[in-house]
Structures are given as C-alpha cells and as structure tokens.
C-alpha cells in the first residue's frame, strides 16, 4: 500500500510576506499595501543593511532594463528607502530630478512608478529643472496614462513648492494641448488655472475652450478657466458666466496632502532653543471667531513687490536689491548672514513668537516698529480680556496670549508699554484668579517710566486683592514685586554703565519710585503677617524681598537704603524658626556692609557712588542692631531697645510673667528658634546628662556652640555675629 502523503500545493511563499503578485496588476496601490511593504522592508533590515537615500538615488539613476518588482528584492529595498524618507522627512531638492525621470520614463513597471510618484514629498523646495525634465518625458509618452495623470495631480498639489515657475509658464502651450484628453482635462484645467497670466490669454485659446464646452457641456473646471480668462481679458470672453461658484476644482490633493502636512509639522517642531523660550501656543479652538482677532500671527513678508506693480521682479519700492523674505528665516547663522537684507514682517505682531525677529527688532531702532506693535498689542489685550469684556469666555487662549507676551518680555529684558497700560485698566476689575501667574508676571515687567504715571492706579487694586486673598496669592504678589524691583534696578545699572553722567533727574525719579514700592511692600507685609499669623512661608517671601532691598547700594549702585518696618523686623527677630532668624541676620549684615561702604566712599571723596545716607538712616539701623544684639547676644533683650515699636519692657511687668530667666530668654542659646540646636549641642557635648542645663554653654563652650551653629549652615548668623559683635573672650 502506498501511503498517501499530503503534498502542499500552494506556491512557495515565505511566511510573513505579503502577496507580491498584486503589484503586477499595475493598478493604483492603496495605502494599506504601501504600509505592508514598508513593514516588509523593516523586517528585512536584519538581512541587508539600511539603504540611504543616496544609495537609492544612485540605484535608480543607474539601473537599466525592465526590472520586475517581485523578482528583485534590491529594487524593493531601494523603493522602500525612498518611500520611508519621503514620507517622514520629505525628499531634498536634488532627489526630484532622478526620481521624476525614472517614474515618467517607463523604465520600471507602473507599480514602481506610482509608488515613486506618491513618495515625492518635498522637504523644502522642488527645483524647476526637475519638473521641466519630467514634462519632457511626458511629451514622449513612455509611461502609461495613469502615471501621466498622477504626475499632473502631483504637480498641482506641490505647485507652491516649485522654486521658480518661469520656464514652466513657458510651457503653457503644451499644457493647453493636453486639454483634449478627456481624462486629463479637469486636472490640466486646474494646472492651467494656476499657471495662467494675462499674456497667456489668446483668442484661439478662448475659442478652444468654448469648443470644448460646446462638446462636453459646461463643466466647472472649464468654467473656472474661462472666468479667469475673462478677468484678464474681458473683451475676449464675451459670454456670460454664472456668478457664484463655491469650488471649481475637485480636490485632487491625493495622497500627498496629508504627508506634506505631516512633514511640515515635524519640521515645525521648534528647535530646542525656541522650545525653551516659547510654549507651543495651543491652536485656537474653533469657536465662532471674530474675523478681526488673531492672536498668533505667522511671520510673512510685506507684499511691497506687488505695490510697485512689478510682478516677478523682486525689487522693493526703492528698487533696492532683493530682500530676504521673512518666512525663510529659520536659524541664527542665517539671520546673521542676511541681517542687512532682512525685511520686517507685514504684521509686527508676528515677532512675538519668533526669537530671530525679536533680535532683529532690537537692532533696528525704528519708532514705527514699536508703534505698530504697541497698537496691535493694546487692541488685542483690550478686546480679548476675559474679565473686562462680557462675552469673552475663552480663558485658555487669552492665558496663552499673556504667556507669550510675558516670555517675549523676558527675552527682550524689557516691558511693553501696551501691556503696562492694559494692566492699569484691567487690574481694578481682576478677580485675582484668572490667568494669575501670567498677570503677575506681566506686572514684574512694567517699565519705571510708565509706572511713575500709573503706579497709584496699580497699588490700590493690588492691595485690595492682596489683603483679601489666600496665603499663596500673597506670596505670589510679593515674588512678583521683588522681580519688579530687580528689573528696575537692573535697568538702572545698565543705564549707569552706558551713560556715565546720566541726568540726575532720571536717577532721582527712579529713587522715588523704588522708595515708594518698598514702602508699599513694607506696609502690605506688616498687615499680611498679622492676617496670616506670622506664617513662616510668608515671612520667607517678605525677607526675600528685603534681601534685594538691603543690597541696592552695593549691588545695583542705587543710593537708597530702606530698612524693613518694625512689624516685619521684630516679627522675624522673635520668630519660631531658625530659617527666618538666619535670613534676618544675613540681611542686617548686608545693611551694615552697605552703610559702611557708603561712609567710606564719602570719606574718600570718590566721584562715583558718592552719596551720603541721612543720619536718620543710621539711627534707624542702630536702633535695630541694638535691639538685635541685646536680644541674641548680651541677654538684655527687654532693656536696650529704644524703638517705639520695640521690645522694651519694664522689669516689674516682666516679673509678673513668672518666667525665671527672662533676660537671656532670647539669646542664641535660649531663643525658641535656636532651641533645637542648643539641645542637640548639649546632647553631643554631655551625652550622659539628661537635664538640659543650658547654663553650661558658656565660656569656651559658647565658642564651640557658635562653631557648631555655623557648621549647621546658619551662614547668616555667622556673618552677622562676626561683623556686628566684638567678642571679649
């Protein structure tokens, strides 16, 4: 008996491969199959190494003879490479010549040609010569009708990418002759619509179109072309055409539109530099938009060329040499190279999201630039403010807009007048919640010149909001006022360096402004500490502010010294945490340094920085320092203080408290803020002693204790003690 064996009758296909015979049919490939081929190509990576675009182009340029797709894995490999690169990044200009020639010369089967045409996504632009070469191949009709049609469709889709169209326009007659092909007629009409200029409208062409219309009936694409002809030469086209047509041309974008968009989106990933500077502004949601409002404007060049009536010649109004269009500005080296030919954008608002144009704006000192930007920004802020105008409800968009303005101000290191004026108008109506960090950010950039005019209108609403808001809001406001102060001081320091003898009036004006701000902060801080029950978090922000204030003379060359108000000073001195105490010590140390330096400069009669602080300032400082030293060091906390809001208390009153050692109760050992350190110290110094006898810390142990404190990072305390206290050991 012969055993029946099962013999496989299916062709020998390897598992995982797609059915390649479908390619032989030469029909249109659908995207699914293209995807499968790409996957297939990926799978083969282990077999052969990746093919670079150069290799693929070389292959296509040199391959002769009809190659069948399913027989040649080499062809597949190179084809896949072209497709992958085309769809992901787009093809470079030099690739088009070769690939177009290959696709239209009929060397390969239609399937290959179609796939090639479909992957012709431009990365930047398409050289005209490649298109001319392609058209010449079209003339000899070596490729199939389908491929020709696909080429025309491709040409329409990528029309705007072709770098120059003069030669293409010269071929108008040839394209016109293609109208006779019924299949191509709609697409060729579309192409002609894009190419037509006045000189192309000739009587015989009009007749031809009318003949076609008579033959095939009024088709929308013919109508389009006739309307265009009529626009250019109304005397030649005397028939009446129906007025309103929504769309003339069928959407022949084909598979390229999506791919082009994808490539462009990938391209527009802002470079790391841009990304750190600017958030990707979220696309405006499609709500019913007002036509006159556009918050994000892309940079485009002013069409001064058209105004001169010279089309095709890139001359500006003064017939100067060709200028570098703003849309092509991508990188900083490019900017430097073209800085003298760069033209400003049509709408100044587009500089907001473009760091290169911001650099340019800085270099060009032209009043009209600032005016244009000022008006646009002012109008947009007023129009779109969500709490000033009743109907506006798109908070996200407005927030994003404010954020952009803030980031631009940080980039330029100066504020815009329009945003300062806007704050003046909108702060009284603000609820303190909407767009909070953006508004406070913008507050920190108000220029001193504007602030002197509108300051009073800002202090009141700000104070109102401040007192009635949460702890976090208070801290945010303090932070933003600190940054405001720093921006003013930096601005002044820069001016001092540039103009050696800056007019005294502007300096005194700034001094007044700064003094006003500091007094305002002092006032709201004192009240806030009471409202928030001396919150440590709040105190941190307040003392941060005064850290800037104490060093104004030495750091920023501003002859002003303002001490914190008693409500802040004493609260800090008697606070329960060491961070505050440490910070206070540091600040007092800096005050001292500044005062000493001022005295020395005055004595040495130096020209610069010669300024005399008033006696009152020294008295104030001395009062504070006496209180502080008496408190922390000499154990005379309640005796020495002569400040009207100070700590002086009579002994009889203190005895009534029944506290034993009240005199030393706030020194560095016994202070509630320092208690944890002294306990720790005692534990280490006398490990066996369980009674915490703080009196043991004296003499040499006192010095050790101080060293111990310094080692714990209490640097402020260290510098304060070293500078203000003479230890008699």
């Amino acid at each position, binding site marked *: 008996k012969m055993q029946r064996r099962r013999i496989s009758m299916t062709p020998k296909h390897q598992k995982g491969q797609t059915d390649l015979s479908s390619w032989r049919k030469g029909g249109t490939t659908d995207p699914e199959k293209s995807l499968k081929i790409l996957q297939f190509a990926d799978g083969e990576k282990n077999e052969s190494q990746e093919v670079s675009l150069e290799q693929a182009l070389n292959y296509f340029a040199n391959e002769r003879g009809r190659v069948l797709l399913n027989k040649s894995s080499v062809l597949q490999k190179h084809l896949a490479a072209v497709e992958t690169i085309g769809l992901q990044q787009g093809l470079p200009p030099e690739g088009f010549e070769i690939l177009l020639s290959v696709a239209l010369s009929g060397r390969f089967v239609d399937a290959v040609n179609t796939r090639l045409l479909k992957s012709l996504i431009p990365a930047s632009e398409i050289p005209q010569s490649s298109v001319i070469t392609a058209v010449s191949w079209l003339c000899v009709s070596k490729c199939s009708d389908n491929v020709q049609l696909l080429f025309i469709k491709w040409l329409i889709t990528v029309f705007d990418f072709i770098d120059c169209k003069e030669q293409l326009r010269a071929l108008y007659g040839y394209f016109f002759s293609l109208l006779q092909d019924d299949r191509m007629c709609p697409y060729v009409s579309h192409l002609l619509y894009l190419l037509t200029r006045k000189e192309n409208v000739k009587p015989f062409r009009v007749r031809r179109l009318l003949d076609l219309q008579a033959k095939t009936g009024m088709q929308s694409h013919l109508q389009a072309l006739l309307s265009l002809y009529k626009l250019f030469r109304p005397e030649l086209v005397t028939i*009446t055409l129906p*007025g309103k047509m929504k769309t003339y041309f069928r959407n022949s974008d084909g598979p390229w539109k999506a791919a082009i968009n994808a490539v462009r989106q990938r391209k527009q990933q802002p470079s790391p530099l841009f990304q750190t500077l600017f958030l990707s502004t979220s696309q405006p949601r499609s709500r019913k938009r007002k036509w006159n409002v556009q918050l994000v404007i892309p940079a485009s060049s002013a069409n001064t060329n058209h105004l001169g009536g010279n089309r095709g010649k890139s001359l500006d109004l003064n017939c100067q040499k060709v200028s570098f269009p703003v849309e092509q500005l991508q990188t900083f080296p490019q900017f430097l190279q073209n800085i003298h030919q760069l033209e400003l954008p*049509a709408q100044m608002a587009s500089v907001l999201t473009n760091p290169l144009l911001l650099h340019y704006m800085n270099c060009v000192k032209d009043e*009209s630039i600032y005016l244009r930007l000022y*008006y646009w920004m002012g*109008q947009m802020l*007023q129009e779109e403010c969500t709490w000033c105008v009743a109907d506006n409800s798109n908070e996200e968009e407005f927030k994003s807009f404010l954020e952009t303005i803030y980031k631009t101000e940080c980039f330029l290191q100066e504020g815009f007048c329009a945003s300062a004026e806007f704050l003046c108008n909108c702060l009284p109506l603000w609820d303190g919640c909407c767009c909070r960090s953006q508004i406070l950010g913008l507050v920190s950039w108000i220029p001193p010149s504007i602030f002197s005019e509108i300051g009073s209108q800002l202090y009141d609403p700000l104070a109102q909001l401040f007192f009635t808001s949460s702890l976090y809001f208070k801290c945010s406001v303090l932070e933003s006022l600190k940054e405001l102060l720093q921006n003013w001081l930096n601005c002044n320091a820069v001016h001092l360096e540039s103009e050696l003898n800056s007019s005294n009036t502007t300096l005194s004006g700034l001094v007044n402004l700064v003094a006003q701000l500091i007094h305002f902060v002092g006032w709201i801080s004192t009240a806030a500490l009471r409202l928030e029950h001396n919150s440590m978090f709040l105190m941190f922000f307040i003392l941060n502010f005064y850290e800037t204030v104490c060093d104004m003379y030495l750091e920023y060359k501003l002859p002003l010294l303002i001490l914190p108000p008693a409500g802040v000073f004493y609260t800090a001195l008697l606070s329960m945490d060491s961070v505050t105490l440490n910070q206070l010590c540091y600040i007092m140390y800096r005050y001292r340094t500044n005062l000493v330096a001022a005295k020395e400069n005055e004595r040495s009669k130096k020209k610069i920085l010669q300024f005399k602080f008033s006696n009152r300032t020294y008295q104030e400082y001395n009062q504070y320092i006496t209180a502080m030293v008496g408190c922390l060091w000499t154990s005379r906390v309640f005796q020495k203080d002569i400040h009207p809001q100070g700590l002086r208390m009579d002994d009889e009153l203190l005895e009534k408290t029944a506290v034993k050692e009240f005199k030393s109760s706030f020194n560095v050992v016994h202070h509630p803020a320092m208690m944890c350190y002294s306990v720790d110290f005692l534990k280490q110094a006398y490990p066996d002693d369980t009674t915490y006898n703080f009196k043991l810390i004296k003499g040499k142990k006192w010095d050790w204790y101080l060293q111990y404190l310094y080692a714990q990072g209490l640097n402020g305390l260290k510098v304060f003690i070293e500078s203000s206290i003479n230890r008699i050991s």
Partner: protein
Amino acid sequence: NPQRVVSLLHKAWALYSVTPLFRFSRARLQNYARLLRVQIGAELDIKVVLSSVPDLRGSQQDQAAILVELSQRSQGSPRSSEDKLVWSGWFCSVCGDELSENMPEDFACLPLFLTNGAETYTAIVGNWFQKTFDCCFRRLSVSPLNLSWMAAMWTGCSVDKAASALELVFSVPRLPHSLDISYAIHPEDAKALWDTVQTTPGEITQEEVDVFMDCLYSHFHRHFKIHLSAATLVKVSTSIASLHCDGILKILQSQYISGVLMLLTELAISQIK
C-alpha cells in the same frame, strides 16, 4: 463730489475703530483695488473701487476719507453704471487731532470705519487691510453714558422738516425673558426740556446731560413706576441719527453728518488709546 457723502444717509452702518495704517499711500489706490480684487477671488464677479473723498473731514489736519466700494457686475450689460453696489466701507477721521497730532509720517490716521453690506465682505476687506497695513479693527461699542450724551446733543439740534420722536430703548437683562423697554418722547417736548436744561449755548456739561436724563426717567417712573436708571440704555433714535450700543449707526440729516461723525471719531479714538 457731495453726492458721495450724502450716500451715508439712511443706511445702517456697522462701526469699527481702526488703529493707524502703516505705509498707506493715496497714490496707490488703484493698486490696492486690484489686490483686493484678487483677495475676493475670481469666482465672484465683483468690481472693487477705492477712492479718496476729501469732502469728508473735520479740520485740515484730518486725512481725507477713503471709500471702498464693492459692486456686482450686472448681467448682460458691461457698462459700469448698471453695477449694483453690494458693500461699501468708509475710513474717515473728523477732527481726530487727538490721535494724529504726534503720529509719525508713515502712519495714516483714519480711526473711524463704517461698513454697510454682508459681513463676509467686511471680513475679507478688513483682513486684507490688517495684513497689508498692520492695523487693527475693533467693533465700536458705545456705553450707556455716551448714548445719553448723544440723546441730549441730538435733541438740541434743530431740524427744518417734521422731526421724529426721541426714542430710547432700554434693556433689562437677567429676567427669565429679557425685557426691552422703548420710551418715545415727542420731539418738541424733548427739545423744550433740553432748552430749559442747557445753560450755555454751544456747550454741554455732564451735569446738564444727567439732569436731562433724570427728568426723562422720573417722568417715566411717575407713569409706570419703573426706574429706567437701573436698566441699560442700548439705543438712541432722534431725527438726526440713531445709534445702537453695539456700534450700529444711521444718519438721517445731511447737515449733521459731520457733527455725528465727529462724535464717533472721538469714541473710536478713545477705544484705540
């Protein structure tokens, strides 16, 4: 050509404020018309004409007004006289010195924009101007305070023909159905009232306007027990002109065109500054 200016009468105009136009040149009006034509598109058979109208201005410092007209070519006849006007827009400035005083040469100050016609055309023309001259359009909104000023001022103007009533429209929001109250006063009575209130001819103060309005409110209250002062004034109509708070204007008397536009120029400028 006084005909042009008269075309402002008896049409409802939507009002906008416009920031100064950068590098706008009167010598290029034809070019602009051509470019605007392209913007509108070849599909529609629209003719675009831009013209300068020097008659419409207040002082010598004002720039002459610019008129933009979109007309549809009539079917069958190529002659332009048969074209139908589908949209018109006026850029003008009547005594707009406050804005134009310190403006650099590159900028043209025409802060008031009036438009009549389909909103789609307004959008196309407006967008083209915004992109070409870097300006900003905003709908002009008129506060109830300013509307009451208009009411007082226009009531005081004398008209030769039979005057129409002074009509005030109030809106009462936040009711289940929002309520509109229309209060019409016989023109002679209104004028008589105003004449007693106004002390110095040619000058109007805020107090006089307040007194005028209070009289009208208390009269209404006496009859209907409704306090109109608590409602929002949204529209004022007189025989001179009518104005809605959303910035919709109708001028009815040719001799007061300049005066009305001067007030509106002032409002437009305050919206820009």
